[in-house]
């Protein structure tokens, strides 16, 4: 039978939470904020009556939702440096000197000679999750915007507000409130999905645990512990979301 050594968890607790969980939470927060912003913009584009906006947004969302997150993670980690290097290099070539200098200031001299841009592991994973989650947040926000009655839009235009004013002051606040529970549920899924950066050997919570597990040959103890921690956190969060849901339901 297997000889258990739960002491290994105790010994590595500091590392697991200080290094691992911090990374996981930072990544989740950044991806949530970025994802909701980008997702809302995409949703606005998708609902636009101009095909020039709605078509690319629709294509982006459907394509992103068709491919596995793991593939997106690989894409970004390996290929984003090339793509960014190329894009910013082209931008640099066509833009006037002051903007070009600014580009160099922000992204480094690689903009100048078109070599791949250095994007660290953390930045790369943040970009990955923003790009990927935005497609999912977009669908939620689209439903949220559609849940606000058309009359509000008309009323606000009649008051003389323009599109952006209408969106920011009238429609989006209501859409957010209606969709808050769903957005948060999606964020819990995002929190779970961040564990996939394990494939890049990044030290997130699971990555930290698997490093300890493999070094000490204690896979069973560490993985059970990780599962337990994720379970407790996610259960607690989804409980909070449910409480919030019932409160919002009353207000409405």
């Amino acid at each position: 039978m297997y000889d258990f050594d739960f002491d290994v968890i105790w010994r590595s607790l500091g590392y697991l939470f200080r290094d691992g969980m911090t990374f996981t939470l930072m990544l989740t927060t950044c991806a949530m904020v970025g994802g909701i912003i980008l997702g809302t913009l995409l949703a606005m584009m998708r609902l636009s009556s101009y095909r020039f906006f709605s078509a690319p947004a629709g294509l982006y969302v459907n394509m992103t939702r068709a491919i596995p997150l793991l593939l997106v993670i690989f894409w970004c980690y390996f290929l984003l440096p090339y793509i960014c290097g190329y894009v910013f290099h082209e931008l640099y070539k066509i833009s006037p000197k002051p903007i070009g200098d600014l580009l160099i200031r922000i992204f480094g001299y690689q903009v100048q000679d078109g070599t791949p841009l250095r994007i660290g592991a953390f930045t790369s994973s943040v970009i990955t999750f923003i790009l990927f989650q935005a497609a999912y947040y977009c669908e939620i926000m689209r439903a949220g915007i559609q849940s606000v009655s058309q009359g509000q839009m008309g009323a606000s235009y009649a008051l003389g507000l323009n599109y952006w004013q209408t969106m920011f002051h009238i429609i989006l606040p209501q859409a957010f409130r209606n969709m808050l529970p769903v957005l948060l549920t999606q964020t819990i899924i995002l929190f779970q999905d961040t564990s996939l950066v394990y494939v890049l050997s990044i030290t997130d919570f699971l990555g930290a645990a698997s490093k300890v597990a493999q070094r000490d040959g204690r896979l069973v103890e560490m993985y059970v512990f990780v599962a337990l921690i994720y379970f407790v956190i996610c259960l607690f969060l989804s409980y909070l979301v449910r409480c919030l849901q019932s409160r919002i339901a009353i207000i409405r």
Partner: protein
Amino acid sequence: MYKLFFPLSVALVLGLAAPVAAQELTGTLKKIKDTGTITIGHRESSIPLSYYDDKQQVVGYAMDLCMKVVDEVKEELKLPEIKVVLNPVTSATRIPLIANGTVDIECGSTTNNLERQKQAWFSPTYFVSAIRFVTKKGSTIKNFQDMKGKAVSTTAGTTSMKMMTELNGKEKLGINLISAKDHAEGFLLVESGRAEAFVMDDILIYGLMANSKAPDNYVLSSEALSLEPYAAIIRKDDKSFKVVVDRAFKKLYASGEVETLFKKWFQSPVPPRGVNLNVPLSDLQKKVFAHPTDSGDPKDYE
């Protein structure tokens, strides 16, 4: 032959003739100068070359060597301080990450071979290993032919993986290869009974065996497949950086300092468990120190 040594010789000539003028910086050196940081790619479980110790710090022989390279870069760029960023890599990710600029120099257990030289450039060789395999004591597998029809693990992206895949294709052995993410995982597959053998460079197997729960339970094969000269990798066509890296290694080798480092990592107790690997300083190894080479042809090491 001449062709193989060409990059190194050109690099040396350039290095001696003109210490790169500061305003003419290109490639990695310019990147380091501009950002004040260098990103070192390291391994998770290439004991004792580049791995996590018991405090989750990256240590190892190759890491020590690379820190000397960082010192040399500091001197070259006349920077008082360079921030070192550590980026974990696996066998499968190291070359793409060097190529796409995420990592500036990788210090681990990367074999220098001709095929890889098309993707990246190598520092002078710092260790010579050979591909062998480890089994549990009492296993029926004594040589590579015995693996027929068995489950065998190795690490994704390594020369071992490639060699086993080719062996399988060529000799129709029907070996069931399980690819592991890193060496520790591959070794654990043998420990847990999922694979009967783990094929890898012998020094890495030593390291894993020594740090396993019961080192006496394992046997290393006597049969070896090929020579594996280890070197650090840098971006291809980055001449000025190559000059500095080569110079750092040459200095280390000439001063004999490298032998102190060799003793520290191969002939004294190393973390995490304080085991002494007792690897002798072979003639081959001495030759590599006496005549630094970045050849990727195994023939040059015989």
